[in-house]
Protein backbone atom coordinates (compact mmCIF):
# COMPACT_ATOMS: atom_id res chain seq x y z
CA UNK A 1 0.00 0.00 0.00
CA UNK A 2 2.84 2.37 0.90
CA UNK A 3 4.43 1.65 -2.46
CA UNK A 4 1.21 2.60 -4.26
CA UNK A 5 0.97 5.84 -2.31
CA UNK A 6 4.55 6.71 -3.16
CA UNK A 7 3.94 5.91 -6.82
CA UNK A 8 0.85 8.15 -6.82
CA UNK A 9 2.84 11.02 -5.28
CA UNK A 10 5.48 10.52 -7.95
CA UNK A 11 2.96 10.56 -10.81
CA UNK A 12 1.15 13.61 -9.49
CA UNK A 13 4.38 15.55 -9.03
CA UNK A 14 5.35 14.79 -12.63
CA UNK A 15 1.93 16.11 -13.61
CA UNK A 16 2.40 19.24 -11.52
CA UNK A 17 5.73 19.96 -13.12
CA UNK A 18 4.56 19.26 -16.68
CA UNK A 19 0.94 20.43 -16.77
CA UNK A 20 0.48 23.76 -18.48
CA UNK A 21 -2.45 25.89 -19.55
CA UNK A 22 -2.69 27.76 -22.81
CA UNK A 23 -4.68 30.95 -22.43
CA UNK A 24 -5.34 33.87 -24.70
CA UNK A 25 -7.81 35.32 -27.12
CA UNK A 26 -8.58 35.64 -30.77
CA UNK A 27 -9.76 39.09 -31.81
CA UNK A 28 -11.15 39.72 -35.30
CA UNK A 29 -10.51 43.04 -37.02
CA UNK A 30 -13.96 43.09 -38.64
CA UNK A 31 -16.54 40.33 -39.05
CA UNK A 32 -15.61 36.98 -37.59
CA UNK A 33 -15.46 33.87 -39.74
CA UNK A 34 -17.68 30.79 -39.13
CA UNK A 35 -15.66 28.54 -36.86
CA UNK A 36 -12.10 27.90 -35.75
CA UNK A 37 -10.21 25.14 -33.98
CA UNK A 38 -7.22 25.70 -31.73
CA UNK A 39 -5.25 22.67 -30.62
CA UNK A 40 -1.99 21.43 -29.18
CA UNK A 41 0.02 19.21 -31.51
CA UNK A 42 0.51 15.70 -30.18
CA UNK A 43 -1.74 12.90 -28.98
CA UNK A 44 -4.16 10.62 -30.80
CA UNK A 45 -7.29 12.75 -30.93
CA UNK A 46 -10.81 11.55 -30.15
CA UNK A 47 -11.74 8.23 -31.70
CA UNK A 48 -15.47 8.95 -31.72
CA UNK A 49 -17.52 12.01 -32.56
CA UNK A 50 -21.17 12.68 -33.37
CA UNK A 51 -22.87 15.26 -35.54
CA UNK A 52 -26.62 15.65 -35.66
CA UNK A 53 -28.98 17.54 -37.98
CA UNK A 54 -32.22 19.23 -37.01
CA UNK A 55 -34.21 22.23 -38.22
CA UNK A 56 -32.01 22.24 -41.34
CA UNK A 57 -28.79 22.94 -39.43
CA UNK A 58 -25.93 20.85 -38.08
CA UNK A 59 -25.86 20.84 -34.30
CA UNK A 60 -22.15 21.78 -34.23
CA UNK A 61 -20.14 24.18 -36.35
CA UNK A 62 -17.20 21.76 -36.16
CA UNK A 63 -16.48 18.27 -34.84
CA UNK A 64 -13.03 17.15 -33.82
CA UNK A 65 -11.84 13.63 -34.59
CA UNK A 66 -8.49 11.89 -34.48
CA UNK A 67 -7.00 10.12 -37.51
CA UNK A 68 -9.00 6.93 -38.36
CA UNK A 69 -11.64 7.84 -35.76
CA UNK A 70 -15.34 7.32 -36.49
CA UNK A 71 -17.79 10.17 -36.96
CA UNK A 72 -21.43 9.24 -36.53
CA UNK A 73 -23.84 11.38 -38.52
CA UNK A 74 -27.42 11.47 -37.25
CA UNK A 75 -30.55 12.91 -38.76
CA UNK A 76 -33.06 14.03 -36.14
CA UNK A 77 -34.76 16.34 -38.62
CA UNK A 78 -38.20 15.93 -40.16
CA UNK A 79 -36.47 16.58 -43.50
CA UNK A 80 -34.21 14.26 -45.46
CA UNK A 81 -30.54 15.21 -45.63
CA UNK A 82 -27.53 14.08 -47.64
CA UNK A 83 -24.18 14.84 -46.04
CA UNK A 84 -21.22 15.13 -48.38
CA UNK A 85 -17.69 16.50 -48.51
CA UNK A 86 -15.89 17.66 -51.60
CA UNK A 87 -13.26 19.92 -50.18
CA UNK A 88 -10.34 20.70 -52.49
CA UNK A 89 -8.45 22.32 -49.58
CA UNK A 90 -8.21 19.10 -47.58
CA UNK A 91 -8.64 16.67 -50.50
CA UNK A 92 -11.56 14.92 -48.81
CA UNK A 93 -14.46 13.56 -50.82
CA UNK A 94 -17.37 11.43 -49.55
CA UNK A 95 -21.14 11.18 -49.88
CA UNK A 96 -23.18 9.30 -47.27
CA UNK A 97 -26.33 9.29 -49.40
CA UNK A 98 -29.85 10.25 -48.44
CA UNK A 99 -30.70 10.03 -44.73
CA UNK A 100 -34.27 10.07 -43.45
CA UNK A 101 -35.37 11.05 -39.97
CA UNK A 102 -33.87 8.76 -37.31
CA UNK A 103 -31.15 7.33 -39.56
CA UNK A 104 -27.47 7.28 -38.60
CA UNK A 105 -24.36 6.55 -40.61
CA UNK A 106 -20.65 6.35 -39.85
CA UNK A 107 -17.66 7.77 -41.67
CA UNK A 108 -14.07 6.94 -40.80
CA UNK A 109 -11.68 9.89 -40.86
CA UNK A 110 -9.17 8.06 -43.03
CA UNK A 111 -7.78 11.16 -44.73
CA UNK A 112 -4.79 13.42 -44.01
CA UNK A 113 -4.52 14.58 -40.43
CA UNK A 114 -4.39 18.21 -39.33
CA UNK A 115 -7.03 19.16 -41.88
CA UNK A 116 -10.26 21.09 -41.61
CA UNK A 117 -12.84 19.73 -44.04
CA UNK A 118 -16.06 21.42 -45.00
CA UNK A 119 -19.14 19.22 -45.10
CA UNK A 120 -22.61 20.15 -46.31
CA UNK A 121 -25.99 18.77 -47.28
CA UNK A 122 -26.79 18.19 -50.94
CA UNK A 123 -30.44 18.88 -50.31
CA UNK A 124 -29.95 22.00 -48.19
CA UNK A 125 -26.87 23.80 -49.53
CA UNK A 126 -26.83 26.42 -46.79
CA UNK A 127 -26.07 23.76 -44.18
CA UNK A 128 -22.40 23.57 -43.31
CA UNK A 129 -20.10 22.22 -40.66
CA UNK A 130 -16.44 21.24 -40.50
CA UNK A 131 -14.51 18.13 -39.51
CA UNK A 132 -11.21 18.84 -37.83
CA UNK A 133 -9.05 15.73 -38.21
CA UNK A 134 -6.29 16.31 -35.68
CA UNK A 135 -3.92 14.12 -33.68
CA UNK A 136 -4.44 16.15 -30.57
CA UNK A 137 -5.94 15.51 -27.15
CA UNK A 138 -6.12 19.18 -26.22
CA UNK A 139 -8.34 21.22 -28.50
CA UNK A 140 -10.98 23.93 -28.39
CA UNK A 141 -13.63 24.63 -30.99
CA UNK A 142 -14.30 28.36 -31.38
CA UNK A 143 -17.85 28.92 -32.64
CA UNK A 144 -17.90 32.41 -34.06
CA UNK A 145 -20.93 34.65 -34.22
CA UNK A 146 -21.18 37.74 -36.39
CA UNK A 147 -21.84 39.98 -33.42
CA UNK A 148 -18.84 38.99 -31.28
CA UNK A 149 -15.28 39.95 -32.19
CA UNK A 150 -13.26 38.55 -29.27
CA UNK A 151 -13.06 34.85 -28.32
CA UNK A 152 -11.26 33.59 -25.19
CA UNK A 153 -9.00 30.55 -25.41
CA UNK A 154 -8.25 28.28 -22.47
CA UNK A 155 -6.77 24.83 -22.91
CA UNK A 156 -5.08 22.37 -20.56
CA UNK A 157 -2.24 21.28 -22.79
CA UNK A 158 -0.15 19.05 -20.53
CA UNK A 159 3.46 19.13 -21.69
CA UNK A 160 2.72 20.19 -25.26
CA UNK A 161 4.41 23.28 -26.61
CA UNK A 162 3.29 23.43 -30.27
CA UNK A 163 -0.07 24.94 -31.09
CA UNK A 164 -2.21 25.37 -34.20
CA UNK A 165 -5.14 27.60 -35.06
CA UNK A 166 -7.21 26.59 -38.07
CA UNK A 167 -10.01 28.70 -39.54
CA UNK A 168 -11.56 27.68 -42.88
CA UNK A 169 -9.87 29.40 -45.84
CA UNK A 170 -7.53 31.38 -43.53
CA UNK A 171 -3.80 30.69 -43.36
CA UNK A 172 -3.23 28.19 -40.55
CA UNK A 173 -1.27 29.60 -37.62
CA UNK A 174 1.36 27.30 -36.10
CA UNK A 175 3.50 28.40 -33.18
CA UNK A 176 5.75 27.08 -30.46
CA UNK A 177 5.73 28.42 -26.91
CA UNK A 178 7.83 27.66 -23.84
CA UNK A 179 6.28 27.73 -20.41
CA UNK A 180 6.01 31.32 -19.21
CA UNK A 181 6.16 32.69 -22.75
CA UNK A 182 3.46 34.68 -24.53
CA UNK A 183 3.03 35.85 -28.09
CA UNK A 184 0.81 37.78 -30.46
CA UNK A 185 0.45 36.90 -34.16
CA UNK A 186 -1.57 38.16 -37.11
CA UNK A 187 -4.13 35.79 -38.57
CA UNK A 188 -4.23 36.20 -42.34
CA UNK A 189 -6.77 35.58 -45.10
CA UNK A 190 -5.67 36.05 -48.71
CA UNK A 191 -2.78 38.28 -47.65
CA UNK A 192 -4.90 40.50 -45.40
CA UNK A 193 -4.85 40.63 -41.63
CA UNK A 194 -8.21 39.46 -40.30
CA UNK A 195 -7.51 38.79 -36.65
CA UNK A 196 -4.94 38.86 -33.87
CA UNK A 197 -4.16 35.73 -31.90
CA UNK A 198 -2.68 36.28 -28.43
CA UNK A 199 -1.49 33.22 -26.53
CA UNK A 200 0.35 32.59 -23.29
CA UNK A 201 1.59 29.28 -21.88
CA UNK A 202 1.61 29.09 -18.10
Amino acid at each position, binding site marked *: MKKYALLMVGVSSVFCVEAATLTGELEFVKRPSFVGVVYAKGGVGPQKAELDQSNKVFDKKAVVIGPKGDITFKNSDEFQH*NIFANDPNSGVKFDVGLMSQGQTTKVSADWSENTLTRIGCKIH*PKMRSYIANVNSDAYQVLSFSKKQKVYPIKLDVGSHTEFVLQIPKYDAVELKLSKGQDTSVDVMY*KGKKRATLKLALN
Partner: protein
Amino acid sequence: MDCKKLIIAALPLLFCTQIQAKDMPMFGNLATPDVDDIEYIDEEEPSEREVKLGKMLFFDNRLSKHQNQSCATCHNPELGFSDGVAKGIGSGGDILGRNAPHLYNLAWSGIFFWDGRAGSLQEQALGPLVSDVEMQMTPKDVLQRLEKVPFYKKEFKALYGDMTFENVGKAIAAFEMTIVSDDSAFDKYLAGQKEAMSMSAVRGLQLFVGKARCVKCHDGANFTDDSFHNIGIQSGDEGRYTIDKNKELKGAFKTPGLRNIIMSAPYMHDGSLASLEEVVEHYDNGAINVKNVSPLIVPLNLNPQEKADLIAFMAALTDPVVIERPILPN
Protein backbone atom coordinates in the same frame (compact mmCIF):
# COMPACT_ATOMS: atom_id res chain seq x y z
CA MET B 1 -55.61 52.63 -4.47
CA ASP B 2 -56.44 49.57 -2.39
CA CYS B 3 -55.46 46.01 -3.31
CA LYS B 4 -58.88 45.11 -4.76
CA LYS B 5 -58.76 48.02 -7.21
CA LEU B 6 -55.29 47.00 -8.34
CA ILE B 7 -56.45 43.47 -9.12
CA ILE B 8 -59.47 44.77 -11.04
CA ALA B 9 -57.24 47.20 -12.98
CA ALA B 10 -54.78 44.44 -13.84
CA LEU B 11 -57.42 41.95 -15.05
CA PRO B 12 -58.01 43.40 -18.53
CA LEU B 13 -54.24 43.62 -19.05
CA LEU B 14 -53.83 39.98 -18.09
CA PHE B 15 -56.71 39.01 -20.38
CA CYS B 16 -55.19 40.95 -23.30
CA THR B 17 -51.82 39.28 -22.79
CA GLN B 18 -53.42 35.85 -22.86
CA ILE B 19 -55.35 36.65 -26.03
CA GLN B 20 -52.17 37.90 -27.70
CA ALA B 21 -50.15 34.87 -26.70
CA LYS B 22 -52.90 32.56 -27.90
CA ASP B 23 -53.26 34.39 -31.22
CA MET B 24 -49.53 34.77 -31.82
CA PRO B 25 -48.65 32.36 -34.65
CA MET B 26 -45.58 30.19 -34.53
CA PHE B 27 -43.35 31.81 -37.15
CA GLY B 28 -40.70 29.11 -37.35
CA ASN B 29 -37.54 30.62 -38.82
CA LEU B 30 -39.36 33.46 -40.58
CA ALA B 31 -37.66 36.73 -39.70
CA THR B 32 -36.36 40.03 -40.97
CA PRO B 33 -33.04 39.48 -42.77
CA ASP B 34 -30.00 40.45 -40.70
CA VAL B 35 -27.03 41.95 -42.56
CA ASP B 36 -24.76 40.25 -40.07
CA ASP B 37 -25.81 36.92 -41.57
CA ILE B 38 -24.51 37.76 -45.05
CA GLU B 39 -21.53 35.69 -46.17
CA TYR B 40 -19.63 38.22 -48.28
CA ILE B 41 -17.29 37.25 -51.10
CA ASP B 42 -13.84 37.12 -49.46
CA GLU B 43 -15.65 37.77 -46.18
CA GLU B 44 -15.56 41.52 -46.79
CA GLU B 45 -18.38 43.93 -47.50
CA PRO B 46 -18.00 45.45 -51.00
CA SER B 47 -16.97 49.10 -51.09
CA GLU B 48 -19.33 51.79 -52.40
CA ARG B 49 -17.03 52.25 -55.37
CA GLU B 50 -17.25 48.54 -56.23
CA VAL B 51 -21.04 48.63 -55.94
CA LYS B 52 -21.17 51.67 -58.24
CA LEU B 53 -19.03 49.91 -60.84
CA GLY B 54 -21.16 46.78 -60.58
CA LYS B 55 -24.32 48.81 -61.04
CA MET B 56 -23.00 50.31 -64.28
CA LEU B 57 -22.03 46.90 -65.59
CA PHE B 58 -25.43 45.52 -64.60
CA PHE B 59 -27.14 48.07 -66.85
CA ASP B 60 -24.61 48.07 -69.69
CA ASN B 61 -25.79 46.63 -73.03
CA ARG B 62 -22.20 46.34 -74.21
CA LEU B 63 -22.05 43.08 -72.27
CA SER B 64 -24.26 41.31 -74.84
CA LYS B 65 -23.24 40.16 -78.31
CA HIS B 66 -25.62 42.44 -80.17
CA GLN B 67 -25.32 45.24 -77.59
CA ASN B 68 -29.05 45.02 -77.08
CA GLN B 69 -29.21 43.46 -73.60
CA SER B 70 -27.84 43.95 -70.13
CA CYS B 71 -28.44 42.01 -66.92
CA ALA B 72 -31.29 44.47 -66.31
CA THR B 73 -33.11 43.28 -69.45
CA CYS B 74 -34.18 40.02 -67.81
CA HIS B 75 -33.79 41.32 -64.24
CA ASN B 76 -35.60 44.60 -64.70
CA PRO B 77 -35.90 46.63 -61.46
CA GLU B 78 -39.26 48.00 -62.63
CA LEU B 79 -40.58 44.45 -63.06
CA GLY B 80 -39.54 43.07 -59.69
CA PHE B 81 -36.06 42.27 -61.06
CA SER B 82 -37.65 39.80 -63.45
CA ASP B 83 -38.93 40.41 -66.98
CA GLY B 84 -42.67 39.79 -66.89
CA VAL B 85 -42.56 36.96 -69.42
CA ALA B 86 -42.69 33.21 -68.92
CA LYS B 87 -39.30 32.64 -70.51
CA GLY B 88 -36.79 35.32 -71.39
CA ILE B 89 -35.41 36.19 -74.81
CA GLY B 90 -31.68 36.11 -75.56
CA SER B 91 -29.53 38.71 -77.33
CA GLY B 92 -29.99 36.84 -80.62
CA GLY B 93 -33.75 36.39 -80.19
CA ASP B 94 -33.71 32.84 -78.77
CA ILE B 95 -36.40 31.90 -76.27
CA LEU B 96 -34.64 30.84 -73.09
CA GLY B 97 -35.25 27.60 -71.23
CA ARG B 98 -36.47 28.96 -67.92
CA ASN B 99 -38.16 31.91 -66.24
CA ALA B 100 -35.91 34.78 -65.10
CA PRO B 101 -35.87 34.65 -61.29
CA HIS B 102 -35.99 37.84 -59.22
CA LEU B 103 -32.84 39.12 -57.49
CA TYR B 104 -34.13 40.24 -54.08
CA ASN B 105 -31.94 39.43 -51.08
CA LEU B 106 -29.56 37.14 -52.95
CA ALA B 107 -26.83 38.42 -50.61
CA TRP B 108 -28.06 35.80 -48.12
CA SER B 109 -28.17 32.97 -50.63
CA GLY B 110 -25.55 30.27 -51.01
CA ILE B 111 -26.55 28.68 -54.31
CA PHE B 112 -27.78 30.22 -57.55
CA PHE B 113 -29.81 29.56 -60.73
CA TRP B 114 -32.95 27.43 -60.74
CA ASP B 115 -30.75 24.31 -60.80
CA GLY B 116 -28.13 25.61 -58.35
CA ARG B 117 -25.26 25.31 -60.81
CA ALA B 118 -23.44 28.35 -59.38
CA GLY B 119 -22.02 28.32 -55.87
CA SER B 120 -21.56 32.09 -55.62
CA LEU B 121 -23.29 35.22 -56.79
CA GLN B 122 -20.11 36.18 -58.61
CA GLU B 123 -20.19 32.93 -60.60
CA GLN B 124 -23.90 33.36 -61.27
CA ALA B 125 -23.42 36.90 -62.58
CA LEU B 126 -21.03 35.67 -65.25
CA GLY B 127 -23.19 32.74 -66.41
CA PRO B 128 -25.67 34.62 -68.65
CA LEU B 129 -22.86 36.70 -70.22
CA VAL B 130 -21.25 33.62 -71.78
CA SER B 131 -24.40 31.57 -72.36
CA ASP B 132 -24.88 30.56 -76.02
CA VAL B 133 -28.48 31.70 -75.96
CA GLU B 134 -28.47 34.58 -73.50
CA MET B 135 -25.89 37.36 -73.94
CA GLN B 136 -23.70 35.20 -76.19
CA MET B 137 -20.32 36.63 -75.27
CA THR B 138 -16.99 35.00 -74.44
CA PRO B 139 -14.81 36.19 -71.56
CA LYS B 140 -12.45 37.65 -74.18
CA ASP B 141 -15.32 39.56 -75.88
CA VAL B 142 -16.38 41.01 -72.53
CA LEU B 143 -12.90 42.27 -71.68
CA GLN B 144 -12.33 43.68 -75.17
CA ARG B 145 -15.55 45.67 -74.95
CA LEU B 146 -14.85 46.98 -71.44
CA GLU B 147 -11.22 47.88 -72.16
CA LYS B 148 -12.42 50.39 -74.72
CA VAL B 149 -14.14 52.35 -71.97
CA PRO B 150 -11.59 54.51 -70.05
CA PHE B 151 -13.82 54.74 -66.97
CA TYR B 152 -14.06 50.96 -66.64
CA LYS B 153 -10.30 50.56 -67.17
CA LYS B 154 -9.61 53.07 -64.42
CA GLU B 155 -12.11 51.59 -61.97
CA PHE B 156 -11.00 47.98 -62.40
CA LYS B 157 -7.39 49.00 -61.92
CA ALA B 158 -8.20 50.99 -58.78
CA LEU B 159 -10.45 48.34 -57.25
CA TYR B 160 -8.84 45.06 -58.22
CA GLY B 161 -5.50 45.94 -59.78
CA ASP B 162 -6.58 44.32 -63.02
CA MET B 163 -9.54 43.93 -65.35
CA THR B 164 -10.35 40.22 -65.50
CA PHE B 165 -13.51 38.32 -66.34
CA GLU B 166 -13.66 37.11 -62.75
CA ASN B 167 -13.53 40.69 -61.48
CA VAL B 168 -16.43 41.63 -63.77
CA GLY B 169 -18.48 39.01 -61.91
CA LYS B 170 -17.23 40.29 -58.58
CA ALA B 171 -18.36 43.84 -59.35
CA ILE B 172 -21.80 42.82 -60.65
CA ALA B 173 -22.28 40.59 -57.59
CA ALA B 174 -21.29 43.51 -55.33
CA PHE B 175 -24.15 45.55 -56.79
CA GLU B 176 -26.61 42.65 -56.68
CA MET B 177 -25.86 42.20 -52.99
CA THR B 178 -27.29 45.67 -52.37
CA ILE B 179 -30.72 44.69 -53.72
CA VAL B 180 -32.15 44.29 -50.26
CA SER B 181 -35.79 44.25 -49.25
CA ASP B 182 -36.32 44.10 -45.50
CA ASP B 183 -39.01 46.60 -44.53
CA SER B 184 -42.25 45.01 -45.66
CA ALA B 185 -45.52 45.07 -43.74
CA PHE B 186 -44.52 41.64 -42.43
CA ASP B 187 -41.23 43.03 -41.05
CA LYS B 188 -43.11 45.87 -39.38
CA TYR B 189 -45.56 43.32 -37.94
CA LEU B 190 -42.63 41.27 -36.61
CA ALA B 191 -41.18 44.43 -35.06
CA GLY B 192 -44.36 44.88 -33.08
CA GLN B 193 -46.55 47.05 -35.33
CA LYS B 194 -49.48 44.66 -35.26
CA GLU B 195 -51.61 46.97 -37.41
CA ALA B 196 -49.05 46.78 -40.25
CA MET B 197 -50.70 43.63 -41.64
CA SER B 198 -54.40 43.26 -42.38
CA MET B 199 -56.40 40.60 -40.55
CA SER B 200 -56.46 38.62 -43.78
CA ALA B 201 -52.64 38.75 -44.03
CA VAL B 202 -52.30 37.69 -40.38
CA ARG B 203 -54.56 34.72 -41.07
CA GLY B 204 -52.47 34.07 -44.17
CA LEU B 205 -49.31 33.98 -42.05
CA GLN B 206 -50.90 31.42 -39.75
CA LEU B 207 -51.82 29.31 -42.78
CA PHE B 208 -48.35 29.82 -44.28
CA VAL B 209 -46.66 28.28 -41.25
CA GLY B 210 -49.48 25.81 -40.58
CA LYS B 211 -52.14 24.20 -42.72
CA ALA B 212 -50.77 25.39 -46.08
CA ARG B 213 -47.28 23.97 -45.28
CA CYS B 214 -45.54 26.74 -47.28
CA VAL B 215 -42.85 27.10 -44.62
CA LYS B 216 -41.68 23.53 -45.26
CA CYS B 217 -39.69 25.06 -48.14
CA HIS B 218 -40.25 28.84 -48.03
CA ASP B 219 -38.45 29.09 -44.72
CA GLY B 220 -36.03 31.58 -43.14
CA ALA B 221 -35.69 35.33 -43.35
CA ASN B 222 -35.96 35.30 -47.12
CA PHE B 223 -38.65 32.66 -47.38
CA THR B 224 -36.41 30.07 -49.03
CA ASP B 225 -34.61 27.02 -47.71
CA ASP B 226 -32.13 27.42 -50.62
CA SER B 227 -32.97 23.82 -51.39
CA PHE B 228 -34.38 21.94 -54.36
CA HIS B 229 -37.81 20.36 -54.63
CA ASN B 230 -39.91 18.80 -57.34
CA ILE B 231 -43.20 20.58 -56.75
CA GLY B 232 -45.07 18.84 -59.55
CA ILE B 233 -44.72 21.29 -62.44
CA GLN B 234 -44.46 19.00 -65.46
CA SER B 235 -42.18 20.78 -67.90
CA GLY B 236 -39.85 17.95 -68.92
CA ASP B 237 -36.94 19.90 -67.41
CA GLU B 238 -34.92 17.74 -65.00
CA GLY B 239 -33.68 20.75 -63.04
CA ARG B 240 -31.21 20.03 -60.26
CA TYR B 241 -30.78 16.44 -61.52
CA THR B 242 -28.78 17.75 -64.49
CA ILE B 243 -26.19 18.98 -61.97
CA ASP B 244 -26.48 16.31 -59.28
CA LYS B 245 -27.49 12.80 -60.39
CA ASN B 246 -29.42 12.01 -57.26
CA LYS B 247 -32.78 10.54 -58.31
CA GLU B 248 -34.52 12.49 -55.55
CA LEU B 249 -33.60 15.64 -57.42
CA LYS B 250 -35.29 14.79 -60.73
CA GLY B 251 -37.40 17.76 -61.72
CA ALA B 252 -36.38 19.62 -58.57
CA PHE B 253 -35.72 23.37 -58.69
CA LYS B 254 -34.44 25.89 -56.20
CA THR B 255 -37.04 27.32 -53.83
CA PRO B 256 -37.36 31.00 -54.77
CA GLY B 257 -37.44 33.60 -52.02
CA LEU B 258 -40.83 35.26 -51.61
CA ARG B 259 -39.91 38.83 -50.75
CA ASN B 260 -41.61 41.16 -53.30
CA ILE B 261 -42.98 38.05 -54.97
CA ILE B 262 -46.16 39.85 -55.97
CA MET B 263 -44.01 41.97 -58.33
CA SER B 264 -42.33 39.19 -60.29
CA ALA B 265 -45.08 37.27 -62.11
CA PRO B 266 -45.25 34.87 -63.88
CA TYR B 267 -44.15 32.12 -61.53
CA MET B 268 -42.34 28.77 -61.36
CA HIS B 269 -39.17 27.73 -63.18
CA ASP B 270 -40.96 27.70 -66.50
CA GLY B 271 -43.16 30.74 -65.87
CA SER B 272 -46.19 28.54 -66.43
CA LEU B 273 -48.33 30.04 -63.66
CA ALA B 274 -49.46 33.57 -64.40
CA SER B 275 -50.55 34.70 -60.95
CA LEU B 276 -50.22 33.95 -57.25
CA GLU B 277 -53.83 32.71 -57.39
CA GLU B 278 -52.71 30.02 -59.84
CA VAL B 279 -49.72 29.20 -57.64
CA VAL B 280 -51.90 28.71 -54.55
CA GLU B 281 -54.32 26.62 -56.64
CA HIS B 282 -51.44 24.41 -57.79
CA TYR B 283 -50.30 23.73 -54.22
CA ASP B 284 -53.86 23.22 -53.02
CA ASN B 285 -54.32 20.45 -55.61
CA GLY B 286 -51.16 18.71 -54.36
CA ALA B 287 -49.71 17.45 -57.68
CA ILE B 288 -51.22 13.97 -57.24
CA ASN B 289 -49.70 11.22 -59.42
CA VAL B 290 -46.95 13.47 -60.72
CA LYS B 291 -43.75 11.45 -61.11
CA ASN B 292 -40.89 12.30 -58.71
CA VAL B 293 -42.93 14.91 -56.87
CA SER B 294 -41.61 15.76 -53.40
CA PRO B 295 -43.42 14.09 -50.48
CA LEU B 296 -43.83 17.60 -49.07
CA ILE B 297 -46.41 18.36 -51.77
CA VAL B 298 -49.81 17.07 -50.64
CA PRO B 299 -53.39 18.30 -51.18
CA LEU B 300 -54.14 21.14 -48.76
CA ASN B 301 -57.95 21.40 -48.85
CA LEU B 302 -57.91 25.17 -48.56
CA ASN B 303 -61.21 27.04 -48.80
CA PRO B 304 -61.52 30.21 -50.94
CA GLN B 305 -61.06 32.50 -47.92
CA GLU B 306 -57.88 30.68 -46.90
CA LYS B 307 -56.50 30.98 -50.43
CA ALA B 308 -57.22 34.72 -50.40
CA ASP B 309 -55.57 35.03 -46.97
CA LEU B 310 -52.41 33.34 -48.20
CA ILE B 311 -52.18 35.78 -51.10
CA ALA B 312 -52.78 38.70 -48.72
CA PHE B 313 -49.86 37.46 -46.66
CA MET B 314 -47.58 37.17 -49.69
CA ALA B 315 -48.57 40.71 -50.65
CA ALA B 316 -47.48 41.78 -47.15
CA LEU B 317 -43.94 40.73 -48.08
CA THR B 318 -43.67 43.70 -50.43
CA ASP B 319 -41.00 46.35 -49.96
CA PRO B 320 -39.97 47.62 -53.41
CA VAL B 321 -36.31 48.38 -54.07
CA VAL B 322 -36.08 51.53 -56.18
CA ILE B 323 -33.01 51.65 -58.38
CA GLU B 324 -32.07 54.78 -60.28
CA ARG B 325 -30.62 53.76 -63.62
CA PRO B 326 -27.02 54.97 -63.96
CA ILE B 327 -25.60 57.16 -66.71
CA LEU B 328 -23.20 54.84 -68.48
CA PRO B 329 -19.64 55.87 -69.36
CA ASN B 330 -18.55 56.31 -72.98
